[in-house]
């Protein structure tokens, strides 16, 4: 086989992840005990939908204006949760979308949530709004006109985060946001009631549906991250004594 050079450690990480994942997932399938640090943003989402219901006002959700990447996948899971809550409480959910290719996926996610809640008749495809490049003015217009009372923005956020925060703050909405884009974390940390920071939005999946696959995945990710922390610490100590073999190994 013709293998590329400089990808060995890369391949090791991938294979190690897959192996650990299957091991941990199987352990939980056989009924292993687990505990994962709670995330305050998840109950906050329920509280937000609850309050929107009391006030008789809608809930808004957006993925932000990032390119199609893994953050959308994490957002699908959280959207499913939000849509499930909205279906349960009969609260209107309006979704703003920037990327065309996620329109059909969003429809599937929301329809599934409404079906699972037994409320398929209240599913409104019209409230899944594709705005393209006009996402931001359309979103702030929508938030202020519909008097949105809960604002969720989860995904690859860009400057729309702060627009959403300020527009919804004028309605005193409860806001939960999450992103792995470091350039937006400061704004959501400063302006929201609860946030998912980077990895937290992926770990949320395991809280929402603690099945062996998701819990096993979080454990496998954690163990490999621990290994990397250990490697970084050892590598730094070695480097102090002039030995850079470990960082060289990583790049093999």
């Amino acid at each position: 086989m013709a293998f590329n050079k400089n990808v060995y450690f890369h391949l090791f990480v991938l294979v190690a992840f897959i192996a650990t994942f299957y091991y941990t997932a199987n352990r939980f399938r056989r009924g292993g005990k687990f505990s994962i640090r709670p995330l305050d943003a998840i109950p906050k989402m329920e509280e937000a939908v609850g309050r929107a219901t009391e006030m008789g006002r809608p809930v808004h959700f957006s993925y932000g204006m990032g390119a199609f990447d893994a953050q959308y996948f994490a957002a699908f899971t959280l959207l499913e949760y939000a849509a499930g809550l909205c279906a349960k409480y009969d609260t209107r959910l309006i979704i703003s979308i920037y990327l065309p290719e996620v329109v059909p996926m969003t429809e599937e996610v929301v329809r599934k949530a409404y079906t699972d809640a037994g409320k398929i008749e209240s599913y409104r495809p019209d409230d899944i709004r594709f705005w393209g490049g006009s996402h931001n003015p359309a979103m702030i217009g929508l938030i202020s006109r519909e008097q949105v009372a809960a604002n969720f923005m989860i995904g690859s956020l860009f400057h729309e985060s702060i627009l959403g925060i300020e527009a919804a703050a004028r309605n005193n909405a409860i806001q939960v946001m999450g992103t792995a884009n470091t350039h937006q974390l400061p704004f959501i940390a400063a302006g929201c009631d609860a946030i998912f920071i980077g990895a937290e939005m992926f770990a949320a999946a395991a809280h929402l549906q603690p099945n062996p696959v998701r819990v096993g995945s979080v454990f496998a990710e954690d163990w490999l991250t621990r290994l990397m922390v250990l490697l970084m610490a050892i590598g730094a100590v070695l480097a102090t004594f002039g030995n850079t073999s470990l960082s060289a190994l990583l790049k093999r």
Partner: protein
Amino acid sequence: MLEKLNNLDVRILYVLMVIAATFPLLWPMGLPLPISEQVKASYNAIETNIKPNDLVFFGIDFEPTQEAELWPQVLAVGRHVASKGARMVLVNMIAGGFRYEERIEDVLIKQFNMKYGVNLLSLPFSAGREAAFQSIVADFKGLYKVDYHGKTLTDFPLWNEIKSAKDFKMYVQIADAPDWWLRPMSQVKGLLLWNGTVASGASTMAPLYQSGQMCGFIIGMSGGAEYEFLTKRPGPAAAAMDGQSMGHALIILFVILGNIGYQMTKRKEAEAKKAR
């Protein structure tokens, strides 16, 4: 009285900010502008690495919305690269970037006598972002058939001299979006990476500069203004820096006032509790 500062009508703040940012545009104050080490280092990365006839891949990846911040960078860095006698290939991966490609092409041809097709080439927009960069890495010549102007690429001598992305000495990219270009482009062996970005994207890119994945990195309007100063060609960024300083001063003032109001409100609430 002071607790009112806790909850000012934000519209008052808006009006004051507009005045602070606009006034210096009409009446420039000529405040001094020091040059940062990072901009100096990034300038030197081009100054020392680029030799005459080196191939430089020049990406312009931002929407018109970022013009105020990034066009001065394109202008300053583009002129600097051209003044080193490099051969340049312009490219854009964000739909709105094409008109800056056209504009800088014009500047390079007029001010540096570059010959289109010989030492300058503009490639058209291609969609897909990270995926498009991935295909540049895997199969550079396969991605493009025609140039920006719709002409067949194989008619240009410069195009025929390039075989793959590995032939480029440096990839200079002025972009508003963070790191999706870097994941693919860092796979090209021996290619130096140089990035100019918006101030808000700086936190994403800074670790990548610090880790040595990029040889140069300038940030925002101040980066552009300082670069203009280093290349001794005054441009649009330097003129707007006074408004920056005024705006910053005002925001800091708002933060202080807000905190005074907040502490006063807290004290009052505490007193009210005691009274009960």
